[in-house]
């Protein structure tokens, strides 16, 4: 199982029956592959559909039905088309049960940075600021480190996405929860020790006596 699959499988476990969930483009979009069907989960694509389905078979694409990354998708039975005002009304208005986003940094305050590297990369925030501010639950799905540097840091050095702390961080090494005003280590990835996680993390983590391995 590679790093991405570990993360996607673990995030999928957070999704329970009947939820409305927004998956960001890239790694987060893989999560849908590991959510059992028949659970009545609806996925929102913020570009305008509730009830996002799988990629269509070749020859059955519709140029009017894409996800936020521009890729062809399908719509499940019971899907609804929405315009951008309704889409972000749902997001900002607290109707979205969970959002899963990628991240550049998360810090001890639980705050996320994921839209800009000053002087290097300015993709823009797109819907991320609304998603992190408005969703009932915010899950960050990302690699634990980039180029050998911890992405879980004492204080974000990159521009923040929102003041609102995220709820959960799932990486290839660990699951971290933001609680009681700080980050706590909740689970470790298969074959990864608590010491491995701490060594790869510059942020201070609360570590309970027992840290179970992810059950994937």
């Amino acid at each position, binding site marked *: 199982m590679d790093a991405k699959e570990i993360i996607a499988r673990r995030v999928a476990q957070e999704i329970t029956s009947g939820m409305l969930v927004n998956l960001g483009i890239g790694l987060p979009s893989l999560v849908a592959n590991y959510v059992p069907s028949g659970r009545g989960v609806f996925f929102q694509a913020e*570009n305008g559909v509730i009830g996002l389905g799988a990629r269509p078979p070749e020859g059955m694409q519709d*140029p009017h*039905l894409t996800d*936020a990354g521009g890729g062809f998708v399908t719509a499940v039975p019971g899907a609804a088309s929405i315009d951008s005002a309704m889409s972000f009304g749902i997001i900002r208005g607290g109707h979205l049960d969970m959002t899963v986003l990628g991240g550049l940094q998360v810090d001890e305050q639980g705050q996320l940075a994921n839209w800009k590297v000053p002087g290097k*990369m*300015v993709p823009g925030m797109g819907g991320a*600021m609304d998603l992190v501010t408005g969703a009932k639950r915010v899950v960050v799905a990302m690699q634990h480190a980039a180029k050998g540097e911890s992405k879980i840091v004492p204080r974000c050095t990159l521009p923040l996405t929102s003041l609102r702390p995220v709820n959960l961080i799932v990486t290839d090494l660990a699951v971290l929860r933001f609680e009681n005003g700080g980050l706590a280590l909740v689970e470790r990835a298969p074959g990864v020790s608590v010491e491995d996680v701490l060594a790869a993390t510059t942020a201070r983590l609360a570590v309970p006596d027992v840290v179970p391995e992810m059950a994937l």
Partner: protein
Amino acid sequence: MKRAIRCDVAAAMIPDGATVLIGGFMGVGTPERLVDALVARKARDLCIVANDTAKAGRGIGKLITAGCVSRLVVSHIGLNPETQAKMIAGEIAVELVPQGTLVERIRAGGVGLGGILTPTGLGTEAQEGKQVIETPQGRFLLELPIRGDFALLAAYQADYAGNLTYSLTAQNFNPIMALAATTVIAEPEAIMPIGAIPPDGVKTPGVLVDHVIERAA
């Protein structure tokens, strides 16, 4: 009643320097023939308000490549490296706006609101230069309305009263932009006789639409 017009006639209405709202999300739901006509007439110095700039060769990306744009108000440019390069080179001024804020600012401009209060962006770079308003429910950013000289919409169906429908994720910003410009031009895939779109099927009432583009040849 609207007589359908040609794309080049519409493009000729839009002067250099105009502020133009353009529908679409990564090129889906963007009036592609109108964009082509603006490129063909060598429009210059446009201020484009849109969700994104798609990618090179598609939708608003074509306007970027052709040098038609001097200013952008968008939420995302990450998938068009050309836009990023022109921004860094100082050729295009870019205002980045959170997507939900962008659509509400356009809506506010369209429905006559003086602004909206949003929690989005509070305490981030998106707050820069903005008033923070305190209400009994907390602190919010005051976001001001956006209006365009023109709105260019991609529709699915139009009728000759100007009523519009949209299809699936191709609607995105289009129905909101229909409210927020002095002159609204819709490029539909099909044009129906008046009465063929039932009242409950209309998403954008024809009274908001000034011109309908004729069907593709």
